[in-house]
């Protein structure tokens, strides 16, 4: 496990990923590596707990968009919860929320994904 990704587990067919720190190029690559590895094993639903991530840059966002594109090819989905206000705002401005969902809680996310 890296410093950025602190936990990866599966629940009801959804891969739960917990992050900590800056979602930038490095952080984004780490998420995409996990996602692509799991997609290779047939997983299509991903949920990211971003409680430990207080800041994100546009490169991190663009990597998430690449993951969404790949997921759309296999009819998969990705969602996020526990977003800091600045992260939430950046996701909105960058258009990420049009193609993926920000959830209030883990419970809501697991039910809806």
């Amino acid at each position, binding site marked *: 496990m890296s410093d950025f990704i602190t936990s990866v587990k599966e629940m009801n067919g959804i891969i739960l990923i917990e992050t900590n720190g800056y979602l930038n190029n490095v952080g984004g690559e780490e998420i995409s590596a996990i996602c692509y590895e799991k997609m290779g094993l047939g997983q299509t639903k991903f949920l990211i707990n971003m409680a430990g991530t207080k800041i994100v*840059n546009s*490169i991190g966002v663009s990597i998430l968009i690449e993951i969404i594109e790949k997921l759309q090819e296999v009819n998969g989905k990705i969602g996020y919860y526990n977003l800091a206000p600045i992260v939430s705002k950046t996701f909105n401005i*960058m258009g990420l929320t049009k193609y993926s969902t920000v959830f209030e809680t883990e419970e809501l996310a697991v039910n809806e994904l």
Partner: protein
Amino acid sequence: MPSSFNINELQLKYLELETLLDITNELNSFDQISVLLQEILIKSCGVLNASSGLILIEDNNSDVLAIGADFNLDISVLKGLIFNKKKGFISEIHENRKAININIVDDLFLSKTECSFGLIAPLLDKKNLVGVIILFDKESRQGISPFQESDGNMLSAIATQASVAYNNIKLIESIKEAKTFNDNVMQSIVTGVFTTNLMGEINHINRAAANIINLDREHVLGNHYEYVFESNELLNQLITKCEFESKTLSETQILLECNGKATTVNISVSPLLNDLGEPIGSVVAMEDLSNLDKLKSTFKKYVSKQIVDQLLENEELLNLGGQEQEATILFSDIRGFTSMSETMAPNEVVETLNEYFNLMIEIIFKYNGTLDKIIGDALMVIFGAPIAHQSDTENAVKTAIEMQEKLIEFNQNRIINLKQPIKIGIGINRGKVISGNIGSKQQMNYTVIGDSVNLASRLCSVAASDEIIVSETVWKHVKDLKIFKSKKLKPVKVKGKIKPIEIKEILYNRPAFHYEYAYNKIEAYLIANLPTQYTYHTIDHIRDVVEQAERIAKKEKIPKAVIDDIKLAAWLHDVGYIWEPLRHEARGAEYATSILTEMKFPKSKITLITGMIMATKIPQSPKNIFEEIICDADLDYLGRDDYDANSSGLLQEIELSKKLNRKDWIKLQVSFLNQHAYFTNSSKKLRSPKKEIILKQLLETTK
């Protein structure tokens, strides 16, 4: 990839604007600098796609910046490094005050972060640099790249907002600090102080005042002074009068009766004014004159506060009846004070002595000495009586050193004000003394007497100006401490002793020479002695050369230490006119050698200065840049608007010895100007063009 998935420029600009707006809205909500800096850094990194960041911020108003915040960076590699405002990229940003891109590998310190590219913007307080915000490595999907110009503009905008917020927090912190400081001072001082507002309500009262009036602060605050002091008509009258007349009033020995307690106090009432000088209330100070304090304040004039407190705590320590004990005795006196005072007005003598004694007695009490006597200009101080301490001798030596060192500062002020410096010699001895109250029934004084006291006095007589002489007994007591340096001197024969006494000189830091003193002395000497018939080689010409020499030296980036020497040479360059105009450079150099040696200037400096004086001999022959500077300063007027006035003065002076007709005089000037050339680049640039014009004008007149 669907086009809707692309992150376009517009979105990024929108994000930048939103972030800037967020920062502007949020910044003033922070009250801790560390939180503010961290937040700014995180948001800046995010919005500008930086991989990491660092904020360096001022450290105790020095030129050094310390790490104020870091993000996504291993700062252990930067720990212990000194980021100086005046060095490297910080110096560049200090000068330009705008964001700059840098290659991190070019910077000795930042290269330790192993980043490649940096974007740096200044945090400013008005025009002063208080910190820098540094972003590292702009990220892209292709890897890292340098930051763009637009990134610099964005970071500058964020830094401007951040600077405002940072300065606000600093201001609030300093106000809080000042308030706490004032409150602590108010609560700590023994004088009772309270203040009233315009309504006459008491709005501040310190602990001492609450004790004097025997009331809790809570019972006093917010109440009118006439209510609190209802049975103290005199105090009420004083405050009321102060309110009406807006001037300080005082009364001594007032019996203040409050809440069943009577205290004798001295009272002073002053108007409280705001910044505009308008009255906003009054401040009342009360000095408690209870017997103990009266005794203390009297006693403290002779012994240190610490000893008074010890005596008052344990009266048994005080044996005033007479006993034999060990003590260390220090004598000091002013060298040549009698002859010095003959040249001073009586009030100046008293003023000088009072200033000197105040300074010295403060040091004596600091080291727990007991001031036994002031005998004319001499001081006798006891360490170890009435209370003995293990460190008595050490304290005596420390007192002596600090007396000499403080006197150096004291003399620097006197020298600048053209007053004679005060020089003292100090002698210290330790041995058996008889201590006690000695005198008649009418007048008794606590003192010590005995052979050891006499020897201390003799050692003081042996000490030359600025010297501290101690007996072998004193040195044995302090040598193992290894904090003092000494020099063994030849044993001396003193009155009352058959055998010569072994002595040591205690060494301390003595500066050898003072430029300001030398300038003032030489200027005074020139004013008094330059022949009055001279119309060119006057004190005004010399002052002009000093001024020009300093200006040129600064332009030529000469170090400050040498500028002082150049100025000294300028002051001395025409002093030889006093004795021998035709050989004035050589006579000036001789005089400089003699006076500067007397003033303890090092030989190397004297050689440098005399070289500069000799270089001014016409035709000028400078051998180094310093000599070039003084040569150019001496003939600076050749390329100035006041050339005519100077040349008229020179002609008048030449005509003291030989008459010149107008034609010869013009010819002489043309020839001189033709042969002359400035040596320094700054003078060539500044003065040569005007000199050419003057030369042309002179040539015109010859046609």
